């Protein structure tokens, strides 16, 4: 069940992938918006204008994109870690260490999503907006919350995956990881 090839696995991987691509497209849209805004600012004299609230749009976009990236990074084991010491511990120990760190990541992602939910409800209650566009912050939080919920779900699956490998005494297949 907790295999990337299984029905559940394909669903989870597909969902995380979709979120990551959505976040990437938002970044691309930000690039386009910023370039248009720069051109508008440079060509004020012919009557063009910068995009009002470009700062705000970037930060709203960032809020969505970064939350949207988190599930994919966890699923593909992209987070930075130091394996220098644990490499000498052998396969069994390492597979259980992975289970423990996955439990920690699960706890963290649920904590973050849980708190973000209350942050979002505050924003709905206080009706806070951005400075220039008066874009409701509650919506910006809600967009971010989508990623946080997907991350909370993905963290359950990832824990199930590492647990099932650990019980069988196998190493989890190597994932792509990240490049910085």
């Amino acid at each position: 069940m907790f295999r990337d090839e299984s029905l559940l696995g394909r669903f989870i991987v597909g969902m995380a992938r979709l979120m990551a691509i959505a976040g990437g497209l938002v970044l691309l849209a930000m690039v386009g918006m910023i370039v248009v805004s720069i051109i508008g600012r440079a060509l004020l004299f012919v009557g063009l204008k910068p995009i009002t609230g470009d700062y705000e749009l970037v930060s709203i976009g960032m809020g969505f994109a970064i939350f949207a990236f988190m599930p994919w990074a966890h699923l593909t084991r992209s987070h930075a870690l130091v394996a220098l010491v644990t490499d000498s511990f052998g396969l069994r120990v390492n597979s259980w260490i992975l289970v423990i760190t996955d439990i920690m990541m699960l706890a963290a992602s649920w904590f973050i999503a849980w708190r973000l939910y209350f942050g979002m409800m505050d924003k709905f209650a206080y009706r806070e907006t951005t400075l220039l566009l008066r874009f409701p912050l509650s919506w910006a939080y809600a967009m971010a919350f989508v990623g946080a919920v997907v991350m909370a779900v993905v963290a359950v699956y990832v824990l199930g995956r590492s647990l099932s490998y650990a019980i069988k005494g196998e190493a989890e297949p190597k994932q792509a990881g990240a490049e910085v």
Partner: protein
Amino acid sequence: QEVTLRIHQMLPAQATIPAQAIEPWAAKVSDESDGRIKFELYPAMQLGGAPPELFDQAKDGVVDIIWTVLGYTPGRFPKSEVFELPFMIPNGEVGSAAFYNYVQENSADEFAGVHVIALHTHGPGLFHSKEPVTSLEDLNGMKVRGGSRIISDMLAELGAEPIGMPVPQVTEALSKGVIDATTIPWEVTPSLRVAELVQNHTGFTSQYGLYTQTFGFVMNMDSYNNLPDDLKAVIDANSGLETSRMFGRVMDNGDATGLSIAVNAGNNVVQLDEAETARWIEAAGPVVDRWLADMDGQGIDGQSLLDAARAAVAAEM
């Protein structure tokens, strides 16, 4: 019994309000409590988060006391926002006293979750520009940084091209020509080195300055309620109208410092005459109308709030 209270705010420790209002205030309270109230000062958001979170940090008890710009959370204090409208206040001290009194009578509910120590404004903001601004027409097409929604709205109404950016970026933006001018009070100009970057400063001949922003120095409710009565009394003795007035006075002193730096630098400090000022007040009129309509949309009687705010200012003059 001793208590330690954490004070969190966004500016560096040496900025005007942190150094000349908050620190002396904390020292005074500590002194009057015979050292039983201690303060830890955390400038520059050291305890984490972004400036717009400060108010909630006090409300939710992340820290005990915060100082913040109320305009950082647009929409959160709609009734208090009236003081941000153009040409409302003459100086920091009067503005602060009026704002404190106004809030007590008209918008105390917006501060229901916290214990208010002081509410205040800064002195009148004005134009600092590369090219002189001597009439309304000079503003046409000028790229001007505005600090809040209402100010940006007003700049557009006056014919300028408002550019929104955080205060710390003003220095670089002015020096590189990204903006031609900025609106800020004198108090901020020394730290941003504005008088070195531009040579023209334009204020108004009017009872009231161009605009102001509002600030809150507030305490977490539980932190206050958990104090023993005698310590509560010490806090109470250092809260309210007079404390608000003190914060405003500190802003005015900062304005005087900023002005004298510009004068000593030989800059061109312009004060528009009454006839010209009247044109600006009229040109900014639609901003007030839009604010009133906006309040209407939220089911708030904006006109009576505006009248109350003007009356509160008049009462202090």
